[in-house]
């Protein structure tokens, strides 16, 4: 075994990529801060029960486990930061009103979430707690759109859905949990032939509605079509009203709809959304409302938010144009030190030359050098390397 080989789906970030990730992380977190979101940093490891509370089977399979040698209990490496932030809001902050929190950190996935995914995503997200109204959903979706723009993702689209519609239909259909799972899989992949097979014995009204669901995607006209083909159950009408309201509040953003997108259906409770963009074959960001997750930590709170993998996002945006460094000669002469300090204070990257490395400084990132001309230190282009 070669010692430098990394496990599958695990990678380094070399200087160019690391710089890009850090640049994006700073700009996005700054953006969140200016929108009132406070940064929190939950731990990488926690007791397994806390990590998996209120989450679905997916998260259980994704979480790497190890035994805590201090307590003998099972710990997990977080696979998702959202439940940790929900725990912080529910239990530690205990604020009465609204709490806006954001975070950025590494998570580990025991199995990669897609063929193109990493097992160590850099998860960045924002969550809004304490407000059940549609204003909160609109705010986080707008924040996501702003983040994508700040990052510089070219064409993008934010797809809205609502898990309330499927929940209401599944309840009316009175499906066994096992069948509900299969139904969920078929809807998720818009597998109409599979759906038809599953629903042979379902009552006619629900059958037609569930078969229509995978075709209800596209522009805002989807909502009008949905009102025609879906039954007028109060939960469904309320969900469609919510989406309509969101569409008008988010006018100007590249919004579309997909009423069969049920990702995170096991813990989501209302409006859900997914952002697509660039060349990525999968969604760049996922989010939605999850009002009941905090209950497991002692305080159920309205909650909505989104998260994304910064590595995936970084792959979809142009490289930042980094200015080259300035090479300065070694030696502690006062005038030189003062010049270097002034340049650094102005945001320049100044690298001190060490003896015996001629011809290697351009590779190290230098494109200019400090030269003494007529008693004054001047910045000149780096020649002859």
């Amino acid at each position, binding site marked *: 075994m070669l010692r430098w080989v990394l496990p599958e789906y695990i990678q380094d970030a070399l200087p160019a990529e690391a710089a890009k990730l850090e640049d994006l992380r700073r700009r996005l977190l700054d953006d969140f801060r200016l929108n009132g979101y406070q940064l929190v940093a939950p731990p990488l490891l926690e007791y397994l029960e806390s990590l998996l509370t209120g989450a679905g089977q997916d998260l259980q399979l994704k979480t790497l486990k190890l035994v805590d040698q201090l307590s003998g209990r099972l710990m997990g490496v977080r696979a998702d930061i959202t439940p940790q932030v929900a725990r912080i809001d529910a239990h530690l902050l205990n604020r009465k009103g609204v709490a806006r929190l954001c975070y950025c950190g590494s998570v580990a996935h025991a199995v990669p979430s897609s063929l193109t995914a990493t097992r160590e995503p850099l998860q960045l997200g924002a969550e809004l707690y304490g407000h059940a109204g549609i204003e909160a959903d609109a705010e986080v979706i707008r924040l996501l759109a702003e983040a994508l723009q700040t990052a510089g993702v070219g064409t993008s689209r934010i797809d809205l859905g609502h898990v309330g519609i499927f929940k209401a239909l599944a309840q009316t259909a009175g499906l066994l949990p096992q069948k509900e799972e299969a139904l969920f899989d078929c809807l998720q992949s818009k*597998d109409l032939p599979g759906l038809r097979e599953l629903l042979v014995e379902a009552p006619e009204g629900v059958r037609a509605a569930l078969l229509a669901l995978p075709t209800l995607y596209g522009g805002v006209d989807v909502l009008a079509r949905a009102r025609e083909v879906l039954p007028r159950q109060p939960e469904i009408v309320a969900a469609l009203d919510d989406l309509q309201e969101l569409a008008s509040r988010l006018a100007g953003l590249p919004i579309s709809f997909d009423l069969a997108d049920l990702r995170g259906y096991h813990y989501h409770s209302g409006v859900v959304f997914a952002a697509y963009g660039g060349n990525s074959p999968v969604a760049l960001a996922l989010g939605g409302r999850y009002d009941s997750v905090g209950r497991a930590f002692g305080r159920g709170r309205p909650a909505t938010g989104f998260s994304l993998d910064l590595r995936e996002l970084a792959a979809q945006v142009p490289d930042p144009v980094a200015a080259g460094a300035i090479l300065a000669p070694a030696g502690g002469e006062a005038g030189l030190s003062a010049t270097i300090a002034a340049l650094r204070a102005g945001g320049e990257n100044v690298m001190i030359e060490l003896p015996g490395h001629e011809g290697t400084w351009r590779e190290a990132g230098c494109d200019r050098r400090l030269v003494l001309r007529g008693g004054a230190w001047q910045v000149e282009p780096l020649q002859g390397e």
Partner: protein
Amino acid sequence: MTILNGITLALSKGRIFEETLPLLAAAGITPTDNPETSRKLIIGTNRPDVRLVIVRATDTPTYVQYGAADMGIAGKDVLLEHGGAGLYQPLDLNIAKCRLCVAAPKDFDYAAAVKRGARIRVATKYVNAAREHFAAKGVHVDLIKLYGSMELAPLVGLADAIVDLVSTGGTLKANNLVEVEDIMPISSRLVVNQASLKLKRELIQPVLEAFAGAVKK
């Protein structure tokens, strides 16, 4: 990656390509080359924004999942083995039809071999589908993965039975095998990359609808 302002459709040579031609025609798409005679792997069409890529049948879902093709046409058998994660499969195209079956030598007592709790040795290319089928029956199964000439396995004592696609049954007959159990009917599906459907809906949706309208019931 995909062509930025157009769509790429992944197809396999042979039966799937032949039977897809009428569907493509319904969508107003005519390939400029025939993959049976041309060695090109990327084939243009009469529409500058639509191109075809010729892949091996089992690779179609992979190309679409990675977004290397926006859409593809793949047999249900291939999708079952692939798992279909991350793909939309909205349309049964009703082409390249056949059945996934269990077959065994004429003198093999299959009914006795698959009593609940029994153990059977099965050779197949479709290990996932076979595993699921026998698990549902409550039969232990030792699976032997083969890539072709499945019919040989029971004849030379490699396996008790095989799980394979059957369309006419000619090969089974020629090798003294009989179909002992039907697992499921197979036909080809249209698969679509999820992000492509969202970002290129204006291009993909009309093709999808044209295909849907042209499918033989």
